[in-house]
């Protein structure tokens, strides 16, 4: 794909979303909206009050006797372990609990109230154990072991747990010689930052409904970013064939990573196995949503960064301690992603990285928009600012000098593809008027500007696949089958655009089929990693080409022409040679009659396509080196202008500007909508958000105490820019951008605060209280 090739109509057009009419009318169906009738049972979960304890006994006798209770389940019912990359978790706790909120027992009853009452009747005897709440304590050689059986767990071959420790993964990068280089540096900055736990806060909490039929087949309705991965993980844990599990997933009311993989979805299945035929629903309360499922794990990042007099980065030492929580089945891969991307988007000749995932007795870490990159860049981008200051160089100039460019050999040995990061930096610095001095303010008001750059690769196994189907209806309209989920990002709209553009049909003739149903929808690995436009998009392109081939074969046979002379334009097949025309609706299903009633040609048209990256290589366990660590990197930059009131510590964001190299924007307005939403989620995490724990108990599990950005917290002005340096294997050059917009926000705001006040806090959130005390200490 070259930049100069002509693009078909619809590619690069900001068409209206395909899902919004039903969403605006309240008729879009989410999982909790599916009607199950009067036989539906309601589940509630008994949870551990201890961060770490042995379960001595569980007595469910009284609960089972309560009127209306249909099933009670505990860890005794299933001994299988579950986990995406590391199988370290039981569905219900067995023998030991490792965090406050862990599922210990479950009840299915005819009403939620009865299920709640039954929980009170379940007697659990615990023996409390010492607990660990900080990753730096967890890594100490004498730390108690949270998973003594770590060596027995199933694990993916690119994850490296250390049995006999609390380390669930250790990812290393070794490039050049860091130790020898420090003496050559004109300036070296050493800093440690603490990034707290935060929560995804989708407006729709987790919900799953399970039904097990008399033959044992399972149907699961769940609000899920990964119906197929869920099916596979649950099948493995239960020792079943995935073919005997069917996952159906409707619109998802926000995911941001927390609805990837399996968190609570297996719980109602265990109960439904005991209530054969009757479906069991588990819908998490907002309080449960905060701390019983995935959260964004905390990070302690210890950085040392050096450069020469001219401002060339020479060496980085980066040690990351990820607080994976009680079960790190997913978090281990965030640790890996943090490791192979540990330099940030910079060309650094000497790198030593140790990225550790640690078990603690905190709540379970999982994927969150950015997959570790916001946390990583919060550290790296503040150090880069300090280093530029240390040698007296402008911070933008310093970045332009060091950012990664096409052809650079990255820290892992992979060669970087062309990237538009410099253009992104230029766009945001122009928008924020980087060099223009800010006007003087009242004595208690200080102005500041800050910038941060970023990169992120889709973090996934080397071989995540996508597939797509195209089914023609009798009237020539099209049912597009995909299993990339519509979680708000606009995937269905972009899918329809790609299909219509490649097929040669009007956009209005395409309907994206839903809900995703693993029995009938094509395979998709997961809706994560900002991978759909690229990966699912490629599968749709392949399906569209397959469909066109079938269409042309039928028409060519009927017209006795060469298929190569045919084209499909706006839903009509035309011959370049004979100039004959036939609309799809005339033959899509029933075919074309031969002359003189001599029979028929054709039949129902059903196209299919697939895509899977085949070129990602393994990385050496000791050095992190390998030919190609990832499929590609999306890069970008973000800048903020803010005002701080030194008497209150209050921050007001005046201006925000952001730019990302998306390769090709299939729908530019959707890209901009992602950028705008991402900036606000990013500033929310920078200014407000933190899960506060006391002895493993979350102290603020409500929207009153865990504040997220509202209509009153927005920047006065936001500018967004699309940069397009095409991706060699993306649809018309496209690569993903869903997660990226919130990645640089915390660092850019921290740098703006430093510009305004000359202070740096040791981690977000940069609350008014913290700013005030930092300014008025002593």
């Amino acid at each position: 794909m070259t930049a100069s090739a002509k693009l078909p109509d619809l590619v690069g057009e900001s068409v209206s979303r395909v899902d919004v009419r039903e969403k605006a009318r309240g008729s879009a169906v989410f999982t909790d909206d599916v009607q199950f009738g009067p036989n539906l049972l309601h589940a509630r979960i008994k949870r551990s009050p201890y961060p770490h304890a042995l379960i001595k006994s569980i007595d469910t006798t009284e609960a089972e006797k309560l009127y209306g209770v249909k099933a009670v389940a505990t860890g005794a019912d299933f001994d299988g372990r579950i986990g995406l990359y590391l199988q370290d978790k039981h569905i219900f706790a067995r023998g030991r609990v490792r965090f406050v909120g862990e599922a210990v027992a479950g009840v299915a009853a005819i009403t939620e109230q009865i299920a709640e009452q039954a929980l009170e009747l379940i007697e659990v005897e615990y023996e409390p154990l010492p607990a660990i709440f900080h990753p730096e304590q967890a890594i100490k050689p004498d730390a108690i072991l949270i998973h003594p059986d770590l060596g027995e767990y199933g694990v993916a071959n690119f994850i490296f747990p250390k049995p006999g420790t609390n380390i669930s993964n250790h990812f290393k990068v070794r490039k050049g010689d860091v130790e020898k280089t420090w003496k050559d540096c004109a300036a070296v900055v050493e800093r440690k930052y603490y990034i707290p736990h935060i929560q995804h806060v989708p407006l729709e909490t987790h919900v799953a409904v399970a039904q097990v039929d008399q033959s044992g087949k399972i149907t699961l309705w769940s609000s899920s970013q990964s119906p197929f991965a869920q099916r596979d993980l649950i099948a493995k844990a239960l020792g079943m064939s995935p073919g005997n599990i069917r996952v159906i997933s409707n619109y998802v009311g926000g995911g941001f990573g927390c609805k990837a993989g399996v968190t609570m979805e297996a719980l109602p299945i265990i109960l439904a196995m005991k209530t054969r035929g009757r479906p069991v629903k588990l819908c998490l309360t907002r309080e449960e949503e905060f701390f019983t499922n995935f959260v964004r794990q905390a990070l302690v990042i210890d950085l040392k960064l050096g450069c020469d007099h001219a401002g060339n980065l020479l060496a980085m030492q980066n040690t990351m301690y990820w607080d994976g929580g009680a079960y790190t089945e997913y978090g281990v891969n965030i640790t890996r992603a943090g490791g192979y991307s540990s330099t940030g988007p910079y060309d650094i000749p000497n790198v030593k990285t140790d990225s550790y995932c640690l078990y603690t007795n905190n709540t379970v870490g999982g994927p969150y928009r950015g997959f570790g990159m916001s946390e990583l860049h919060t550290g790296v981008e503040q150090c880069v600012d300090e280093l530029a200051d240390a040698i007296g160089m402008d911070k933008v100039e310093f970045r332009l000098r060091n950012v990664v460019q096409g052809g650079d050999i990255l820290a892992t040995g992979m060669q970087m593809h062309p990237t538009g990061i410099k253009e992104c930096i230029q766009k945001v610095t122009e928008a924020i008027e980087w060099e223009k001095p800010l006007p003087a303010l009242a004595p208690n008001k200080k102005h500041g500007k800050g910038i941060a750059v970023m990169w992120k690769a889709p973090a996934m196994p080397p071989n995540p696949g996508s597939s797509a189907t195209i089914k023609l209806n009798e009237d020539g309209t099209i049912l597009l089958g995909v299993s990339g989920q519509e979680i708000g990002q606009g995937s269905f709209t972009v899918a329809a655009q790609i299909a219509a553009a490649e097929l040669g049909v009007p956009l209005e003739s395409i309907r994206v089929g839903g809900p995703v149903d693993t029995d009938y929808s094509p395979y998709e690995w997961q809706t994560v990693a900002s991978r759909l436009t690229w990966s699912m998009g490629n599968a749709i392109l392949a399906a569209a080409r397959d469909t066109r081939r079938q269409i042309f074969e039928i028409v060519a046979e009927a017209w006795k022409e060469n298929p190569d002379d045919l084209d499909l334009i706006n839903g009509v097949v035309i011959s370049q040679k004979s100039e004959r025309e036939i609309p799809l609706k005339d033959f899509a299903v029933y075919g074309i009659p031969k002359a003189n009633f001599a029979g028929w040609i054709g039949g129902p048209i059903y196209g299919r396509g697939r895509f899977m990256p085949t070129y990602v290589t393994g990385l050496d366990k000791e050095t992190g080196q390998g030919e190609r660590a990832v499929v590609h990197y999306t890069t970008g930059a973000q800048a903020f202008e803010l005002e701080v009131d030194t008497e209150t510590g209050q921050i007001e964001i005046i201006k925000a500007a952001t730019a990302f190299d998306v390769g090709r924007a299939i729908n530019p307005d959707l890209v901009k909508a992602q950028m705008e939403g991402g900036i606000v989620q990013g500033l929310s995490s920078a200014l407000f958000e933190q899960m506060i724990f006391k002895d493993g108990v979350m102290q603020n599990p409500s929207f009153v105490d865990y504040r997220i950005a509202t209509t009153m917290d927005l920047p006065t002005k936001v500018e967004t820019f699309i940069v397009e340096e095409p991706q060699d294997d993306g649809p018309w050059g496209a690569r993903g951008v869903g997660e990226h917009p919130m990645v640089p926000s915390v660092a850019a705001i921290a740098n703006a605060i430093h510009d305004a006040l000359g202070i740096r806090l040791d981690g977000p959130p940069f609350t008014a209280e913290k700013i005030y005390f930092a300014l008025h200490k002593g």
Partner: protein
Amino acid sequence: MSERQIRLMVNGNEEILSVPDHLSLLRLLRDKLALTGTKNGCEAGECGACTVLLDGEPVNSCLVLAVECEGHRVDTIEGLSAEPVMQRLQQEFIDMNAIQCGFCTPGMLISAYALLLRNPHADDHAIREALLGNLCRCTGYERIITAVKTAAGKDR
């Protein structure tokens, strides 16, 4: 658990239902009448996803008991979608790309609708204030505010 018979108007239709004392209006709408456009985001009155009109005023339906609605009028997104002002808001939300996952959308629209009824020319600040209780995690709000502003600017 005692039940009580109540009579109320929902989207212009009279409904006579037997409900438990503790049942919320939110649960009544969703579980008894299958009006699932009203969303359950927190059941604590903190997110606004369950906003409906009670006698024309926006309320968090999770905080209202069904039995309190005896003799009152309730309007949800399903019914209000027939109203011209709501339709104009919906069209602006669509044109502005102000909807992503869509879970907060019905509540957001109803808060905006109630605002425009009492203040047809609501300005930026009034809109931000009226939507303060409606959380959205996807859009960053700006497009929602612009959509309401545009709808407010269009005289009926």
